[in-house]
């Protein structure tokens, strides 16, 4: 996972958006790795920590917009876990901003691209 941006994408929203972005030929960062999950709530703290351990530059969790989670509260739980992971990272001197949660809809490929490109920019800036 060297320097990769790991993006856990909920299949009901973010994954569909990412897929559409791909089909429309929109440009996403080279080091982006999309991982499909049935719900953002499926992502656990240990997944985020391990991804960073294995060299990921950032870990994103992308799920449905507020109130629209197909599993009702999966996106809410994901948000809490991302926040907590940030705290655990800060505790060991690692930038808690390297994990992040985002909400979007299936029909928002441009939003998906915007999110991942902005993350990529922040990573590049940090590396400078």
């Amino acid at each position: 996972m060297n320097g990769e941006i790991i993006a856990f994408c909920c299949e009901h929203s973010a994954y569909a958006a990412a897929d559409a972005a791909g089909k429309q030929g929109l440009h996403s960062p080279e080091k982006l790795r999309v991982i499909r999950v049935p719900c953002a709530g499926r992502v656990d703290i240990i997944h985020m920590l391990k991804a960073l351990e294995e060299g990921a530059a950032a870990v994103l969790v992308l799920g449905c917009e507020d109130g629209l989670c197909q599993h009702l509260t999966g996106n809410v739980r994901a948000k809490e876990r991302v926040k907590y992971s940030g705290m655990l990272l800060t505790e060991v001197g690692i930038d808690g901003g390297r994990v992040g949660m985002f909400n979007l809809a299936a029909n928002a490929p441009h939003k998906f691209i915007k999110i991942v490109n902005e993350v990529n920019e922040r990573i590049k800036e940090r590396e400078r």
Partner: protein
Amino acid sequence: MIVAERKPMEEILQMIAPYKKVLLAGCATCVAICWTGGEKEVGILASQLRLARGKEGSKIDTVEATVERQCEKEMVEELRDKVKGVEAVLSLACGAGIQTLAEVFEDKPVFPAVNTTFLGSPEGEGVWLENCGACGDCFLDRTGGICPMVRCAKGILNGPCGGTRKGGKCEIDPDKDCGWVLIYRRLEKQGRLDLMRKYYPPKNFRAVKRPGKMKAIKA
């Protein structure tokens, strides 16, 4: 049950600083229930330690294992092979578990990753409140089932003290209820305030001589 909280990260890192291969030992009972030292927490702490040590350039090799109850010698025995291969053990169990593990593996440095704090019950999800002082001379029959040793911050038997805050909150912590106001309300509800009006002489603080020991007979 027994409640424990993870120690500050600096303390943990300092304890295991000299070691390159460490076993993180969890317990699936009390500490797992209060989200401090179960299998999941072992995994997270191990990851944090690897991240921290990786960052400072002194890699650490971690082994993870969780037993059903770390205070049982037979269950701790199961870890023998894993313990053999490491330099030190970092236990996330309560003090009873840590010490049992330390006794079974006497030649290995064993470190506490948690501070064991009290006996308590959940007040709400993820919120624990101390309610038993393990004093060996239970008073609950006289206080409507509320322990004055620990629910009262000063542990007095003829309460309340004069420091109760407005609204019946404790002198020491405005977020905590005055134990004796709670006792009053409970006994009032049951029509048994006569219990609170009785004078209780000084407590026998030597009911349990430390270290406490009990010989149980199986029924």
